């Protein structure tokens, strides 16, 4: 069966973008292969690992669980939006390096996007809410302890940490 193709237009990290995608193309493949934004990773084929997490219209989603065509008209943010090469790291990225919240770095972009959405959405976060808020993102290297501390640190700095 021939693949269908569909033109889409969307905003990617604040800039307008367009492309023609195959009907069965996953959003994560569009981001990586077509847009060339390789910071968004793939760690599974079942929607469990969160390595592909991006923010679409303000919500953290797993980009391997959506078709590219579904992103038509949306506002997409990937890890590359947090800070550009040569620029200073953003607050959360800085907390990740300070707390050694990454080792191999494969989960990191997805983890940063989930945590960004978590921190933006919440008014106040307990330690348990931070841990549960990251449940959709697997990290196999760090044991999560330092990731939780990094997010906690930013929550504290933003006055969003609750006991």
């Amino acid at each position, binding site marked *: 069966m021939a693949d269908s193709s569909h033109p889409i237009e969307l905003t990617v990290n604040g800039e307008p973008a367009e492309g023609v995608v195959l009907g069965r193309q996953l959003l994560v493949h569009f981001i990586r292969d077509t847009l060339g934004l390789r910071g968004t990773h793939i760690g599974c084929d079942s929607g469990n690992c969160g390595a592909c997490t991006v923010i679409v219209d303000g919500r953290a989603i797993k980009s391997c669980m959506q078709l590219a065509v579904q992103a038509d008209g949306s506002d997409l943010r990937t890890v590359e939006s947090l800070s550009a090469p040569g620029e200073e790291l953003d607050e959360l990225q800085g907390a990740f390096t300070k707390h050694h919240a990454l080792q191999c770095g494969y989960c990191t972009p997805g983890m940063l996007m989930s945590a960004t959405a978590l921190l933006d959405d919440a008014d106040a976060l307990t330690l348990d809410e931070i841990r549960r808020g990251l449940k959709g993102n*697997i990290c196999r*290297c760090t044991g999560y*302890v330092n990731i939780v501390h990094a997010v906690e640190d930013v929550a504290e700095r933003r006055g969003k940490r609750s006991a």
Partner: protein
Amino acid sequence: MSIPTPTPTRTDERITTWTPPAPNAPSVGQSIPRKEDRRLLQGQGLFTDDLWMHRMGHVHFVRSPHAHARIVDVDVSRAEAQPGVYATLTGEEARGLTDRYPQIAPEPGGSMKDWCLAVGKARFAGEPVAAVLAETRELARDAAALVEVEYEVLPVTLDGVATTRPDAPLVHEEVGSNVGWKGVYEFGDVDWALEHADHVVRIPHLHFHRFSSTPLECNAAVVNWEQGTDTIHILSNNQMPQFAAMYLAPALGVRTDQLQFRSQDIGGAFGLKLTSYTNITAVALLSRKANRPAKWTEYRSEHLVGSCHGNERTFEGIEVPVMADGQILGFSATAYDDVGAFMRYEPLGGVIFSQVLPGCYRFQHLRVDYRTVITNKTPVGPNRGYSRLQHLWMVERIVDVVASQLGLDPVAVRKRNYISADQFPYETPNGCLYDSGDYHGALDRVLELVDYDGWRARQAALRASGSGRRIGIGIGSTLDSGTSNFGQARLINRELQYSGNGEAAICKLDLGGEISVALGTVPQGQGHETTTAQVVGDTLGVSPDEVRVLAGADSARNAYVAFSGTYASQFAVTGIGAALGAARALREEILMVAASVLEAEPEELTLVGATVSVEGDEDRAMTFAQIANLVYANNGAMPPELADAVTLNRRFVYRPPFGVPDWRTKSGHLTLTYASQFHACVVEIEEETGQTTVLDYAIVDECGTPINPQIVEGQVHGAAAHGVAAALQETLEYDEDGQLLNGTFWDYHVVSAPDTPLFKTDNLPRPSPFTPTGSKGMGEGGGGPLHAVCSAIQDAVGPGVVVTDSHNPTERVWELVNEPSVGAREGAEVISR
């Protein structure tokens, strides 16, 4: 599986160093931020799947749906007819194009035939049978679905013990049985000890389960067999390329120098990315056949079923001689190590466990009758803690079972039997030399960290309250032996010409006076760029920021030896040893040039801030840039003897002081360093459901002199998370037909943030007398949580009951609590004199 939601305990013991070191202060010992972080945080890392090449095709493997089946016919014609398909490859074709891979085992196990694709029959569900190269990953997958394979299903063998019986179906006919290797390790006089001990504790059966640390990035490779130059370019995430070369070159019939390996960032490996050479072979053949670059990126479901798992081990007939005062004289056991359908890295597990034969203890009488056994399951790879963790788990089970069966205090039994701090370096009965440690001190510290006495009081109160909940406190003492002597392979196969170990590094002052170091190591998140820069920066008087570290494989840099790679807890010794040696050699050259120009003696010179100056006369100085300019671009102005003597480009190979172990006695110096970890774990069990929750968890690790304490702590956390996960929720199990039941992350329950305890940690350095910086390798961690969690569950359930499995999900814990006669049916018995 239960998702523990403990009230997490915070600790003030966490390492939170973030003060940048004062100028010129040594950076070794400081938790400086990692050099790797910036690119990884900004999504600018280079992982294998990130590489795209012009004309590149994508590979998809056709895999056997059967665990054991004769391959009657493979028909690729429909796949080949698809538009966009560049090439296909079948097992028969691979057999014609390649030689079978060499085997480590002697005969008869060594006659096992292993190719990159199944030939004649499929031996595990998920084994690659054919492969397709096509224009896109989707087309390759579609075409692979059109490959028609006719199978004749054969009976399967799946149980690690039953597979050794004569009536078990044969996995490899040419081996003649399903035992790939066997050997007896015997030291002291176990029979005498069993006869003369006050008690003999018998444990009929212990089972260490199959799991995998599943790196988040699956296997991947981009191979470009460039036919004009006959060079095979391999960008991959293989973690030990020179080991892979040992298999690839003879299989492909090429020179090793035709294999050009490269890797940059690797998304975790944990030992499971050592044996990907099988897939790389197929990708290379497809690249040559289609004359274009070929990319293969494994799907997670393929990774779980088709790459490799950790070793499953069954221990039978354990007998432990114990004296009335709690002194354990040793043990005797039979081990069946189930390695699945192919041996590949095996049977090395059959010697590697013996690096830690007596565990942390002064046991003198030891016997292990070890078999490497073959089944119709996914092959194994050396998963983090490899072979030692299975063995150490048994040793810790023995100690806890002895304590509970004889009514002794588990802390007291450990202290009665630990090697004491004043005995280091300590020689074990099998000739291994434990370099340093303080096991008693570390145990005390971890019990203090976890508040052992407090939890014991709470445990008693809870028991009295009849609340339907039970608390248990467990201990795990474990070792992470690092820097292997490859001569131990001769204890498996005395014909093998391997011994020693080593690593290479090249340290260079570049044209503009910049310092770079090329490493032979292939890191996967361990921070080699940072720790190397710390050591080299200190040696050359510059800040770590000024040192560019080229980590990851790159054959073209020539910074490798046969042992190069990142595995087996050795970077802090071999990698750092090589970088330090190369930096010192470069420093000598820098001093030679400066001494000549500044007309001073090398001893009068100091290196600070990329400048060499005469001590006490700072105006007489030369920058690194001036030195580089002189040597590289102005050598006519140099005295000829000096110009001939310096290159500013120094390669150094670090070699640990090893000899050849004795295959006759199965003894010798098998590893250089012994990092230790002490775990204390508190669990709570809900009696009605068996739900097990970790309430508190503390770890004290000892790994010599830490180069970067925060990186060390990160490794401790990571290894601990793997262990807790394996003990409570991660398992790879098969149904009776040999189908893997946990083939995706839906069924394989990887731990997430809320399931992982917020570990409290401390580090007690006892510098190694044997290593360049006093540091020890420590990344594998020794599986401490498997010991500690089992210990805690047994403690919670109560007297008499024995935890016999390393994996204890809710249902097994429920059984231990509610039907102990069933759960403990294979428990233990005591024979007292």
